[in-house]
C-alpha cells in the first residue's frame, strides 16, 4: 500500500545495492572468497543500514586487557 513515489525510491536504492554487489564480487579470486548479493537488506542504503543495524560501540580502550604479546606467542 506504499505510495508509488516511495516504492520508486526503494527500487532506486535496490538498484544501487545491485551495483554494489557487482563491485564487491569483482574482488573474488577463489571459490572460497566472500560473495555478495540480494538479501533482506538490499532495499536499504548503506547509511540506513548503518543507522538501523550497526549500533554497538566498544567501552574505553583501557577497559580491555592487552596480554603480553611476546609471552602469549611463546605460549602458543
Amino acid at each position, binding site marked *: 500500500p506504499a505510495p508509488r513515489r516511495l516504492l520508486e525510491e526503494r527500487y532506486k536504492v535496490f538498484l544501487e*545495492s545491485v551495483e*554494489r*554487489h557487482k563491485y*564487491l564480487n569483482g*574482488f*573474488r579470486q*577463489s*571459490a*572460497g*572468497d*566472500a*560473495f*555478495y*548479493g540480494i*538479501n*533482506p*537488506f*538490499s532495499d*536499504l542504503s*548503506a547509511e540506513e*543500514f*548503518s543507522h*538501523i*543495524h*550497526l*549500533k*554497538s*560501540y*566498544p*567501552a574505553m*580502550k583501557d*577497559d*580491555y*586487557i*592487552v*596480554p603480553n*604479546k611476546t609471552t*602469549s*606467542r611463546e*605460549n*602458543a
Partner: protein
Amino acid sequence: LPLRFDWRDKNLVTSVKNQMDCGACWAFSIVDTVESAYAIKGQPLMELSVQQVIDCSYMDNGCNGGSTLSALKWLYQSQSKLVRSSVYPFKSRTGSCHYFPATEFGVSIKGYKAYELSGLEDEMMRVLIHNGPLAVIVDALSWQDYLGGIIQHHCSSGHSNHAVLVVGYDTSGDIPYWIVKNSWGTSWGIKGYVHIKMGVNICGIADFVAYPEM
C-alpha cells in the same frame, strides 16, 4: 590447538536470533555468551532473555545501541539473573525494566573478562576453546550484502560498530577463518553465520573481545 573447533558441534550454541530493527546487537551477543557458558558448565542449553538486558542494562541505550562490556558489567555488578526468553520475550523496542521475585529461575555470572587481542588471534583461539564463545565488536558495514564465503577484503578494523559471537574457527583449509554467529536472522549470510579470515584482524574481530565467567 585443534585445526578446527566449533562449539556448535557440542550443541552448546543456541539458535540464530533476529534483532529486527532494534539496534541491540550488544545485548544479543552477551546473552549468547551467557547461554553457551551456562551450558558449558553442564546445565541445559536454553534461550535467555535479550529483552531483559535491553531494558535493564542502565549503562546502555537499549535498541539505540550499547556496549558488550557495559552489559557484562551490569550483569556482574547487579548480580541480575537472566530469566528465560519465554518469561521476558523480545519486543524489538526498549521498555521499562521488569523485576522478578528471587524464586524465579535465572542465570547470573561470577565475573567477566575483556581483552584486546589484535595481533594475538592464536591467543584468541585458546581463549575460545578454554572459555566458550566470545562476544566481539566488529566493523560490519560491508556485511550488508554478504551471502556467504570467507570475508577477506573490504572490512577494516578501527570502526567497530556491531557486536556478534565467535563460536569457532577452521584452519584446515587454504584460508583459515573464524565462525561467527550474527543476530540478523537465518536468511542472512550462511544460515545466520559469517566466516571471517583469521590472522590479520579482519573487521577488527580481535580488538574488543569479552566473555562472562560462570
